[in-house]
């Protein structure tokens, strides 16, 4: 029976080529936009290089201190002291990476200015993040303790600073008016990953600002790596109990902080998130509303076209009804036909989005970002496609099934 539906659907599509074109254009274009958007969101939120351990990591990207009486509050990253003193000492985690947010500074080579983003890290940073080392290796705990001026640079920094040379380990790079000895070169990271992005990674002990001060606020973030995924709730609870005992800075009386998964940790300090629990329900809700609204117009368009096409087939419907087909059978047939049409559109849409993603990747809109269609993206776009097909098929099919046999047959 499905095979028959399929044959009919193809025959109908061939009959009015202009309508087929309009339908396919609408479907494929809508899906293309959704796929490109999902690919982008997926790229930002999922565990890509070098943060491949995100599924068993918790992030602490900001603290919030409040003064309840004066309604004043301060939100921002934590100090090195705070993270080293309270987070590194947690018992459940496997490792705790501590790194500063990247800080732009300049260097000048051959009368050309380079902007170099510096990141100060501890040694566990290299274990928690899985950087691809093209040459050399990361600096060791020993080198950090000795405050050695060593640096790990990215591939892009290497080519910008040294030019086209095969080997740079052991050479010196000047940045922020300091000579660092290069000990390793890693594959570059896109800027949309603020925890792992930088051009030059150096030990926190060579930081020019005082990393030993005891204020809670500073410029550092922590990534807590659990031994296994099942440890995450335990770590959250342990951190919450430690944090509840910490005395806020002078002038504040309440400290709020959570160890949360990647996305939630960034949203927790915005109105979209919840600093107490670290849930992201609000964001998901807003995004779904937006997607629904975006799909509304193409869906209406498709409904309009479908109604016109269906009325054209009134004689066919009349004959089938006269021979005893029930309304539900006819509705089912039409919805299946419509879903076949949407899937045809989906195939075109996927091809189009492959082209567009390729263009975006090549245009270097965001350096080192590589968008691709993976299984998750494909899965979500197929779901979107199915919803689209159902939404635009149900109303016209219902209208059709209500058609009286007599009027349907008389029309011709």
């Amino acid at each position, binding site marked *: 029976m499905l095979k028959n539906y399929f044959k009919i659907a193809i025959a109908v599509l061939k009959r009015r080529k202009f309508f087929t074109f*309009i339908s396919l254009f609408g479907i494929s274009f809508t899906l293309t936009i959704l796929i490109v958007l999902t690919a982008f969101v997926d790229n930002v939120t999922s565990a890509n290089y070098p943060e491949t351990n995100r599924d068993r990591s918790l992030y602490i990207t900001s603290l919030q201190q409040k003064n309840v009486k004066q309604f004043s509050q301060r939100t921002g990253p934590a100090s090195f002291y705070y993270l080293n003193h309270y987070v590194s000492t947690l018992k459940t985690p496997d490792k705790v990476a501590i790194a500063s947010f990247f800080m732009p500074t300049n260097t000048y080579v051959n009368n050309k200015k380079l902007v170099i983003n510096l990141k100060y890290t501890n040694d566990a940073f290299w274990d928690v993040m899985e950087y691809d080392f093209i040459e050399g290796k990361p600096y060791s705990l020993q080198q950090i303790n000795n405050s050695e001026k060593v640096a790990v640079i990215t591939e892009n920094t290497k080519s910008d600073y040294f030019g086209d040379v095969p080997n740079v380990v052991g050479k010196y790079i000047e940045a922020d008016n300091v000579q660092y000895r290069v000990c390793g070169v890693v594959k570059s990271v896109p800027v949309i990953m603020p925890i792992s992005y930088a051009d030059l990674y150096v030990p926190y002990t060579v930081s020019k600002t005082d990393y030993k001060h005891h204020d809670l606020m500073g410029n550092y973030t922590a990534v807590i790596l659990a031994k296994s995924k099942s440890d995450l709730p335990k770590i959250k609870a342990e951190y919450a109990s430690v944090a509840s005992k910490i005395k806020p800075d002078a002038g504040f009386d309440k400290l709020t902080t959570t160890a949360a998964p990647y996305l939630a940790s960034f949203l927790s300090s915005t109105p979209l998130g919840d600093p107490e629990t670290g849930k992201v329900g609000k964001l998901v809700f807003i995004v779904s509303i937006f997607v629904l609204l975006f799909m509304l117009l193409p869906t209406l368009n498709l*409904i309009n076209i479908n109604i016109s096409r269906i009325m054209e087939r009134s004689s066919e419907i009349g004959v089938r009804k006269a021979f005893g087909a029930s309304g539900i059978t006819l509705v089912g047939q039409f919805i299946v036909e419509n879903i076949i049409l949407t899937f045809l559109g989906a195939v075109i849409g996927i091809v189009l989005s492959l082209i567009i993603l390729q263009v975006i990747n090549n245009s270097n809109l965001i350096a080192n970002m590589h968008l691709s269609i993976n299984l998750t993206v494909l899965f979500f776009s197929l779901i979107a496609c199915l919803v689209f097909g159902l939404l635009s098929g149900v109303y016209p099919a219902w209208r059709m099934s209500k058609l009286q046999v007599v009027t349907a047959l008389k029309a011709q």
Partner: protein
Amino acid sequence: MFVHLFKLIWNKKKQNSLLIVEMFISFLVMFAVLTMLVYSYKNFRQPVGFDYNDVWVISFSPPEKLNDAISVSLFQDALKKTLFSMPQIKAVSFSGSNVPFSMNTSNSRINYGKTKSVMTNFYDAEESFPAVMNMQMVEGRWYNKADDAAKYRPVVINRKLKEELFGNENAVGKLIGEENYEQGKAENRFKVMGVVENAKDKGSYQAIENGIYVKMDSNALRWAGTMVIKVKPGTDASFESKLFKTVSNAVGTSVEIEHLDKKLVSKNKVLLVPMIIAAVVAGFLIINVALGLFGVLWYNINKRKGEIGLRRAVGATGNNVSAQLVGEALVLATIALIIGLFFAVQFPLMNVFDLPANTYLTAIGLAVIFIYILVIICALYPGKQAAGIYPAVALHEE
């Protein structure tokens, strides 16, 4: 004529209601996109109000060893002296971190008297700030060293803030204040020394906002990690590298030098990229709708061949027929637009998003024109086709 067209549409209200909904949503989409474009364009037309060419921003973390006001001023005077010893540097001022075109903002409410209270950008700036930025005074003067001893902190406000707080009154010499959270009432803390021309410092497509320039006191200077400097035109990277070394040695912490003109480019990009994406998406949606509308109208006309043939037979010209079909489409569009207008008008009435009402009204006007043109274009070809129907052929089919 209109009554007749309306009756024709009413007879097929089920079929037409979906078309109306589609046009209505298209109108809302166009209204949203056009509001954004009109708003940005109006902002783009505003003068910048200052000169950002050859202005560099030096940012550094303030050195920690400075413990009291005297060591701060010793350090800063020495730094300035070193900078002024370089002939390429024309003017220097410490400032807050919210320099033009940066991502930082710093704002608070400012009060005048008992009734006026407005949101305002706060800029920490020294007396040399207008020289660096080449800002023009409208009335009064910029604050200077002599104002330090005064009871109230000297401030300069921009023209927009002056108009909102004082209207046509003279602003110079007036006292204004900030809300005091602990006592829950306004407190006069600032004395207006002058009014300066508006500076559009958030980007080319951003609106001019209220601004107040506050003279930096010793506490503000202690935590100042941003300087703006004006250099001679044509100063190159080799000088910048020298300057970088000098500043780096003087402050001992991490330093970054940026150029305001480059900051403007990247700030504009942050705003333009989402706007272009939104416009492209809306463009495709509209093409989609146009094709759909065209298809449905075309199909409907094919179905009404008999009726059209009859009209031609009793003497209607081709133009009459085509005018009737375009007219029907326009009546449909008008119904959709009336519903759409009802929603769109709420935006200026309820002052949503705080945009000026005339921006909304311009956008509404443009969106209405746009939808009408779209509908006419989509109806013209089917209408013309209908005009070409021969009564004999059409009636023969029945």
